[in-house]
């Protein structure tokens, strides 16, 4: 069948099930029910502290086919997923579903487990380019991977679409009765927001810590009433590993030009004003937009209500400078953000659900004015791909892309017009991650395209000196530089299902032909 975007998707996918086709970004709201939780209540006097991960697997009654969940606040410094899965593999379990909020190159051992049938399914919201992404692209996983958004995953858990049997929480600090926080200990990573839905809805919850604090481990982020067991290990990870990717303002002249134009557009469109809210990613160009927005805010003496998202030191500086009253933080991107979250009460955590779940009573993204996003590809309908590269190989997942695009008042894609000598604008993107109806503007170094749906913006900016042209004209410019690339050929095999934040299927990734 074809979904509303015209993407060809199967009705049923082996290892995934019935497919609910994407019907539009705002087609799937209304009355919702949350899944009930089965738990084993704890008598006074019972102990939760276990000696090892092996003992934890015994206690939780691990079986073949179960779903184990992990969160990625330690990013490429995370040891917990590998520690748990090493024991799972050693004991010969099969057909395990790894439901991780993020997968990084450090999780390479998963590739071997995929080959051996120990891991046969992966659900994930964010995946870095690396060995696991490559292995999924090559079809090494028995069942298709499921790519969700940061808001879509907690929605799936809370609704029962994704049932977690055992949640493992990498706990930088925990006490022996299961109170957990991310701000103390050698692997302090700040907020633990993505783990919240797992802790609330999993059948069993195991906190894995390398810093056992005296009871109670305040300030508590995940409380004891959600935690079954606590395991102490030598190390849960390297906090320096959370600093992955570019976390400083770019010095690349092209990136800076894009940023300057994006900020000018934001200003001329009237979004630089008191109470404004703002989110940007951690890439160099995205942070350059923040730097340019900062100048406008300073010039106009504007105080914003909040900045949100994964938080970098740069955004912390804007908070401390008084440009925003508050931060909503779903993950700390660097150690300065960790310190700020620990020390500054105006720097608030938000759970993944609070951040972007479309089926709760109002996510933070609904209050967002300006969102700055990247893209691997964008098509002339403004649909965006952040999942597959120009060779069809998986190199990312939605993260908060489609959550924030849907919620914000203006979603701006900033990207250079060509990447690796290939045009970014296509007639059809290889994979749709974020629907064009939620993308408002594309800013490139050679021009700006405004989504024709945004007639108000086109009208407001009609006298601007910004180089505003149609996306078709921008596409023509990019192809004049690079030519039109050959289409990638795919087999029929689906290696990944891309869910929109509401759980419908917006696209699938098929295995590229060799």
């Amino acid at each position, binding site marked *: 069948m074809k979904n509303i975007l015209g993407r060809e998707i199967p009705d049923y996918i082996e290892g995934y099930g019935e497919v609910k086709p994407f019907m539009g970004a705002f087609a799937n709201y209304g009355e919702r029910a949350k899944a009930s939780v089965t738990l084993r209540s704890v008598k006074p006097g019972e102990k939760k502290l276990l000696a090892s991960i092996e003992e934890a697997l015994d206690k939780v009654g691990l079986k073949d086919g179960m779903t184990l969940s992990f969160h990625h606040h330690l990013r490429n410094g995370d040891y917990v997923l590998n520690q748990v899965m090493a024991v799972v593999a050693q004991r010969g379990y099969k057909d395990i579903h790894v439901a991780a909020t993020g997968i990084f190159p450090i999780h390479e051992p998963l590739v071997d487990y995929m080959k051996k049938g120990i891991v046969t399914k992966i659900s994930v919201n964010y995946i870095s380019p690396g060995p696991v992404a490559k292995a999924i692209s090559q079809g090494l996983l028995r069942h298709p991977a499921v790519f969700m958004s940061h808001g879509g995953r907690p929605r799936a858990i809370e609704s029962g679409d994704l049932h977690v049997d055992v949640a493992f929480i990498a706990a930088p600090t925990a006490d022996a009765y299961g109170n957990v926080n991310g701000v103390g200990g050698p692997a302090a990573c700040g907020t633990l927001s993505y783990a919240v839905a797992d802790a609330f809805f999993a059948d069993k919850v195991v906190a894995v810590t390398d810093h056992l604090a005296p009871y109670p481990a305040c300030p508590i982020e995940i409380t004891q009433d959600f935690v079954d067991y606590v395991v102490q290990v030598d190390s849960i990870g390297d906090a320096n590993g959370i600093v992955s990717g570019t976390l400083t303002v770019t*010095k690349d*002249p092209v990136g800076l030009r894009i940023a300057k134009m994006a900020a000018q557009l934001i200003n001329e469109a009237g979004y630089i004003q008191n109470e404004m809210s703002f989110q940007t990613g951690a890439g160099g160009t995205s942070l350059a937009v923040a730097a340019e927005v900062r100048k406008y805010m300073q010039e106009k003496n504007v105080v914003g209500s909040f900045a949100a998202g994964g938080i970098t030191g740069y955004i912390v500086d804007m908070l401390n400078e008084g440009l925003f009253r508050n931060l909503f933080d779903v993950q700390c991107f660097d150690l300065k953000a960790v310190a700020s979250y620990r020390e500054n009460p105006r720097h608030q955590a938000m759970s993944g659900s609070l951040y972007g779940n479309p089926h709760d009573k109002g996510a933070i993204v609904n209050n967002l004015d300006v969102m700055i996003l990247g893209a691997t590809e964008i098509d002339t309908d403004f649909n965006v791909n952040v999942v597959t590269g120009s060779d069809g190989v998986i190199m990312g997942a939605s993260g908060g892309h489609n959550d924030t695009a849907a919620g914000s008042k203006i979603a701006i894609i900033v990207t250079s017009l060509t990447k690796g000598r290939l045009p970014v604008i296509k007639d059809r993107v290889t994979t749709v991650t974020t629907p064009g109806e939620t993308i408002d503007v594309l800013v490139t170094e050679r021009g700006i395209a405004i989504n024709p749906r945004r007639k108000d913006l086109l009208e407001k900016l009609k006298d601007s000196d910004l180089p505003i042209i149609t996306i078709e004209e921008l596409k023509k410019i990019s192809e004049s530089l690079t030519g039109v690339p050959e289409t990638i050929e795919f087999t029929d095999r689906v290696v990944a299902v891309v869910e929109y934040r509401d759980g419908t299927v917006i696209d699938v990734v098929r295995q590229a032909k060799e």
Partner: protein
Amino acid sequence: MKRLRRSLLIISGNNPKHIQDAPVFDPDVVIFDLEERVAAPDKDSARNLVREALSFLDYSQVEVMVRVNPLDTEEGQKDLDRIARVKPGALIIPKANEQVIKQAEGLLTKIEKEEGFPEGSIEIIPILETASGIENINQLISSSPRVTGLWFNGEGLMAEFGTQRTKEGAELYYVRGRVGIACRAAGIDAIDTIFSDGNDYEGLANDASAARRLGFTGKLALDGRQVDTLNTIFQ
């Protein structure tokens, strides 16, 4: 109307991405450098790349110049012969003196005839980078009607002195004054030396303002980040 040469963005002739992106910063002039920014083993490929770029990419919104290698070298001779045939706006000639410019003049006239270009359509910008060049500045300017500007290379002069430029540039005060006056008297552009700290926007603005006060009409831009500042100061 006299064309503006406020900002002259210099790009390595061996960097395809930079060659492609150069016009997006809105410089008045893009300079493709085949000399200092290209290592010896890459001279051939850079020459071909710049030639192809000038033939196929759209530079209609900027003036394009090419800095060739010194004409007393084989590379310089090849540069001039290959590049002049795709008609850049101007060739930039290093280590220039009256004799070198006359030689370039002759070669360009021959090529223009062979290619059917109007005679004199390719201009010459000599680089002034030696003490003797500065002492003979007026002869240099009058050595060819194609000379429509002079590029003062402060780093080159300091290298001859065996010293280095300072950010404040007091050591260049006399030379800049002399170049500014000579160019103004001859009615040609005076192009100031590069400010090499790309992260110091304030330093760039101070340096460019000082040059402007001494009669310069434009300045080299190290990368796209410097263009806006130069376009503002040399208005």
